[in-house]
């Protein structure tokens, strides 16, 4: 696999994921949301969600979201390159949903993901988990559980590569930063 950027020193993704799973377990239990369906945002969020699903021993299948239809930059960039469509192999309505993304940045992806989920029905609740919170929010959205918070210099971006092995790398001055 091609390596992009430089690995972030001192970050062990396995450890981060274990810690996240523990925090999530506690969080969900405290809110009475034990029976959840888990959904990852394509593409990186799905990788993280799959790991968390196993660690949290969620029985149901993994859902995957394609948020292309809900992106707010259609007027600027048109339709996005084709990625696989959303696949939610369960009912959403009245279920507790655990929504997983890899990097939380402006919050626009999460906004689009919430819209996409609501196109399938009305969930009882949505819990948001993100592997990395890198700040820079443009919308009032926060994760319930975060693996790690990073403060990046201007022009730096963090990217998840995977699925096997999962690796976080730091990119400097990439041409088109994404949310």
């Amino acid at each position: 696999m091609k390596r992009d950027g430089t690995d972030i020193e001192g970050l062990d993704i396995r450890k981060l994921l274990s810690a996240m799973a523990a925090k999530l377990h506690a969080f969900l239990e405290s809110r009475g949301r034990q029976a959840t369906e888990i959904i990852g945002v394509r593409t990186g969020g799905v990788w993280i969600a799959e790991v968390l699903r196993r660690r949290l021993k969620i029985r149901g299948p993994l859902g995957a979201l394609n948020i292309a239809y809900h992106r707010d930059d259609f007027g600027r960039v048109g339709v996005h390159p084709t990625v696989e469509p959303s696949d939610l192999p369960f009912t959403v309505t009245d279920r507790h949903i655990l929504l997983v993304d890899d990097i939380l940045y402006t919050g626009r992806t999460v906004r689009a993901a919430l819209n996409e989920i609501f196109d399938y029905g009305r969930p009882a609740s949505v819990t948001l988990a993100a592997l990395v919170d890198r700040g820079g929010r443009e919308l009032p959205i926060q994760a319930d559980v975060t693996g790690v918070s990073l403060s990046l210099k201007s022009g730096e971006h963090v990217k998840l590569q995977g699925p096997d092995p999962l690796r976080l790398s730091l990119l400097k001055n990439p041409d088109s930063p994404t949310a």
Partner: protein
Amino acid sequence: MKRERNLQINAHGRLQHFLTIEGLPRELLIEILDRAEGFAGIGGRAVKKVPLLRGKTIVNLFFEPSTRTRTTFELAAKRLSADVLNLNIESSSAKKGETLLDTLRNLEAMHCDMFVVRHHLSGAAHFIARNVAPHISVINGGDGRHAHPTQAMLDAYTIRRHKRDFMRLKVAIVGDVLHSRVARSEIHALKTLGVPEVRVVGPRTLIPAGVEEMGVSVCHDIETGLKNVDVIVMLRLQTERMRGALLPSAAEYFRLYGLTPARLKLARSDAIVMHPGPINRGVEIDSQVADGGRSVILQQVSHGIAVRMAVMAMTAGSQAG
């Protein structure tokens, strides 16, 4: 040979208008099919809509009556959250031409973003695309005998669902090729997608001059034409064809070219039967075949919505950047 260049593809290399399959690259056709695949699931959701074209206004500009095509375009537009305006303009009452341009100007003044055009004259969609304001996309919903590109793409989509690989298919297009815009677009689409053998089958009166130059073989005998094909596309035979010197009667046509269970046996055992609709039972196709297990006619209709969504999203998005 001079061909239409650039009119469909804008300066950013994106699909601005969708007027004809002719001249479009294979990758673009594949992209339409792939995107349609993505849109196909939306019909099964609680909210059968995505907000891609929210705030856009799409006009169904129909100069030729058609309920079904208009309905699927309308549904496609609505599932993309666009506002839809249906205009049925009886061309007989319209004092041609002038009104066509005047109509365009009026709709432009109302800030419409996309026209879906159906017209009885070949080339009408090209004409409109050449004459609209640059921010407007035009989708050809069928012009004269010339082209019906979304129908061809939904047929290609249906074929891909069943056959996977275009590269080893034999396809027979049977019937009134002369008057058929579906046949013309279908031939371009299948050839571009790599189908090695496309046969057109029909009486000499209904096969247009020089059709071989489009890369098909011509067959006047249906038994030979259907032999070992993977896909059979039956074309609609309009009853007015029987009034001139093209055909003696519907009954004779059915005897010579109607798709019957016996003739279907000549095709490969897993061959599918398609028809752009509306079908004339007992004229071009036997009811047993139309309703039988090999018929994918109703699937074509539902695929039509996803394919039209894909084309609308791509053309509307072509203005970005």
